[in-house]
């Protein structure tokens, strides 16, 4: 199975990188852009019986390593 993990800073955590990108987009002529968040995508293959089992495993990986839940939230896709 293919797992895709999206990791972003939590809404309450200032995303300075997102802010800088937003300002750059404004400077390039897209003033309508707002609330830019820069995150990270991690994808990998995983041998698992079914999607539910895979999702549970990937969530455990997120809690242990892939995300720092003090500052980040994550979203898991398994297909």
């Amino acid at each position, binding site marked *: 199975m293919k797992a895709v993990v999206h990791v972003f*800073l939590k809404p309450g*955590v*200032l995303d*300075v990188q997102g802010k800088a990108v937003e300002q750059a987009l404004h400077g390039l002529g897209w003033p309508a852009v707002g609330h830019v968040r820069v995150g990270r995508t991690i994808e990998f293959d995983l041998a698992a019986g079914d999607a539910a089992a895979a999702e549970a495993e990937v969530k455990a990986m997120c809690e242990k390593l892939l995300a*720092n839940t003090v*500052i980040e939230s994550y979203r898991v896709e398994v297909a």
Partner: protein
Amino acid sequence: MKAAVIVFPGSNCDRDCKVAIERSTGAEVSMVWHQETELPDGVDLIVLPGGFSYGDYLRCGAMAALSPVMADVKAAAERGVATVGICNGFQILCEAGMLPGALLRNDHLKYNCKPVALEVSNAQTRFTAGYAGRREVAMTVGNGEGNFFADAATLDRLEGEGQVVFRYLANPNGSARDIAGIVNGAGNVLGLMPHPDRAFEPELGSADGAILFQSALASA
């Protein structure tokens, strides 16, 4: 007195720490490679140095927190051994769950490299007792991700329990409540972004860092 400096791939203040501890305290300092599974016997002080362990991959300190040696570092800290994480070492302690909170990118996105004035917010810890009531000390910072973050409840608890040890007099990076360094609840694990290892003799602009290492070992 014995101290151990943990060396991760990408640590770059490990030798500075060794020299700083030796010159400030006369302790015997072992360099411990991160793949080791045991610290030397009878260590009184463990230091996690600054640098860019594992190239800051994933998050600063995230990979180092999972290094083999960290299991014994945690066990020693639980036994009460004085443990100090400086800069990247602070990030590693947070990632390892040995200290609360996390270090975010500096609010201005720049790498900060400059002297900083610090308030000694708690002079009663085993790391700050040697300042003998001095309210202000000088060290330097050198980091891109030194912006301390924790949720409001955690910050309130840190402040209420006297776990905030150092504060910036002029906040250089957006750190929550000007926090530069904290200790764990037991008081034996300290994490700080400023470098005592770059301020251990007057020729470096400040010798205030030496007192931190002396205090840590005096209390061992």
